[in-house]
């Protein structure tokens, strides 16, 4: 309906004033001056800092003076002993949290769109952790997960289990933080899935019912394919979040014990803290490129597959 009414109108405009629309190539309905404020804002706050960061990544920068040293920072950054570990941990963390958020988010969304008591309240309960400050959550869980005085291990102790050092065992620390990240972030994934599932027209379910479909069939052949845009959104958002995650890890382990739960962002932050501003800027440029190199093809692939089906 809407497209039908809009289309003739536009054609009318074009035929009435062909010269003006040709000059503007017929794309933008706004004059140039209308774009200037946003353009200036974008230039000053985004383009210039981005360009500056590419420049500073090629310098030795102490805040007092800047010396151009070519690609030395990048060479040094790739020599960083914690780098391999940092990248490995970043990928483990990003894929783990992202996968867990997809699975748990979908399960919770199905639960919270079904006919259960106090649905609205339960939906908000799932969403609450998203609203709390990440650092606050990090500090709280650090206290709860203390190997000796923490509530978690004391409860485990009551039933005769000696809980591990959740954040102090080098083999466990990263996974513990990832678990807390999932707890905190799953509410957002659930919300996106709820919106996706609610948007599925009831007709499909009714038709499936007539055909005698089971609950599993409903899930497999209606919800899963039709909630696909929601899945794409959740995967991409949580993967980007996971790849550049920093605040939770920093507040819970500081990358420790030692370097065992370092991710790229914390490696870069430590360089910044040490006053190696050029080096850490180079690290951020690398991080930017890595995130872009993963997300762009993934997003293209997911969206293309979406439009094919």
């Amino acid at each position, binding site marked *: 309906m809407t497209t039908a009414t809009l289309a003739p109108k536009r054609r009318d405009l074009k035929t009435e004033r062909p010269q003006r629309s040709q000059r503007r190539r017929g794309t933008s309905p706004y004059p140039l001056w209308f774009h200037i404020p946003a353009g200036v804002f974008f230039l000053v706050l985004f383009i210039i800092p981005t360009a500056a960061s590419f420049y500073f990544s090629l310098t*030795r920068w102490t805040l007092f003076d800047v010396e151009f040293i070519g690609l030395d920072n990048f060479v040094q950054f790739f020599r960083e002993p914690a780098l391999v570990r940092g990248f490995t941990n970043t990928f483990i963390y990003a894929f783990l949290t992202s996968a867990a958020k997809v699975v748990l988010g979908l399960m919770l969304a199905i639960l919270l769109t079904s006919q259960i008591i106090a649905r609205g309240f339960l939906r908000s309960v799932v969403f609450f952790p998203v609203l709390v400050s990440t650092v606050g959550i990090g500090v709280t869980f650090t206290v709860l997960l203390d190997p000796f005085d923490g509530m978690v291990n004391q409860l485990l102790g009551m039933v005769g289990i000696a809980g591990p*050092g959740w954040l102090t065992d*080098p083999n466990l620390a990263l996974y513990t933080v990832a678990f807390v990240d999932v707890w905190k972030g799953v509410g957002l994934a659930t919300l996106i899935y709820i919106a996706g599932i609610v948007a599925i027209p009831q007709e499909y379910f009714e038709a499936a019912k007539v055909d005698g479909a089971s609950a599993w069939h409903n899930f497999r052949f209606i919800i899963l394919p039709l909630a696909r845009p929601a899945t794409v959104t959740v995967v991409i958002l949580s993967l980007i979040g996971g790849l550049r995650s920093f605040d939770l890890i920093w507040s819970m382990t500081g990358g420790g014990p030692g370097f065992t739960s370092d991710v790229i962002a914390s490696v870069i932050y430590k360089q910044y*803290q040490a006053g*190696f501003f050029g080096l850490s800027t180079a690290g951020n440029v690398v991080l930017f490129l890595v995130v872009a190199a993963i997300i762009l093809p993934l997003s293209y692939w997911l969206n293309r597959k979406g439009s094919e089906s």
Partner: protein
Amino acid sequence: MGNAQPRRLALGAVGVVGALALAGCSGGGDAADGGELSIYIDSNPSSIALWDGLVAGYAEVNPDVTIEVETHPAGGEGDNLIKTRLSTGDMNDMFWYNSGSLLMALGPDKQLVSLSDEEWAADLDDNFVQAVSTEEGLYGVPVGASFAGAMVYNKDIYAELGLEVPTTWDEFMANAEAVTDAGLVGVVQSFGDAWTSQVPVLGDFFNVTADNPDWADEYTAGEAKFVDEPAVAGFQHLQDIHDAGVLNEDFASATYDDAVRMLAEGEAAHYPMLTGNVAEALGANYPDADASIGVFPIPGADSASNGLTVWMPNGVYVPKTTEGEQLEATKEFLTWLATPESCAIQADSTTLGGPFVVAGCELPDNAPALVHDMQAYFDEGRTSLALEFLSAIKGPSLEQITVEVGSGIRSADDGAALYDQDVVKQAQQLGLDW
């Protein structure tokens, strides 16, 4: 009504931008008002207590001048705030900051007013002069006392078990094991606060210089390495303590406060720590334990060379942006800071962790017992400055490496080699050609 909201928002935004612009200009330049000075210090409670005391003391001597104290977070974040203020010309009239390599990282020749010609310069301890000077001048006046990186121990446990203060590492390990066998904690470590893990390496530096007096220069030149003897011993000690099983069971999560509590309450016998910090914590929380706590240097291989690794107090520095009347008033205040009168106020305001570094400033009678233990080493000249005062090169990841070595995640040799790689970054940042 519908339109009012956006406009009010816009006005608010203009107000905020205006306020930011004003704030940007005000930092360092109130030169017209000579009656008011401002100083930038870190926000540790003990630092604030110390400066509250000094500000009140100066107000009695010189009521015309009021001193405003502004604080910044301690640690790396504070370092960056100081650098940012200096580089944008927004620094307060003076600031109180580390001496040694952290001061050198600020580029004092370009940023600070030289104080070499002040009268009090001659009264300063040579070690302190070295820690705040470049070839072009002397930049700071000390506020606070020196301290040592050493083994703090519980004398009651020593008396009970009939132990003697060790002078070699092997004797020390034997003592630690004896304590553990008696059911107490031989050595307490607190990797919950990662910085505390560095003391066994940094505090071992007396033993390194005893073995090779030129080590610091060779290290700055890129020749001496931590992976070789004698410097690797510090890392080896960390591994020894872990492997011998004398540590507290919660070493990985215990915090600095936990460790001091265990030491003060007689649960643990040894804690490798900075005496200044321990004295403060004892003074604030466990005044009754004062007489039970002593200190001895981290022992090396040879009992003949046994001495303390010493840190210098922070200095007060004046940025070049302080000029005219403001500079005169500031210098007057600095002169007062280097008097015995100011030292007495400092001793009252905090708990000392070592002797003062200004001539004429004596230790008060109520100084903590562990400071008296240290005095003997100072009197006999058995002290060495810590490496950070002799070389500008300190790697940023030392605390992570020492946590790994001290927790058995990484071997001592491996850790020392990794630290050698880490310091290369600092050398590059300083523009040294290694």
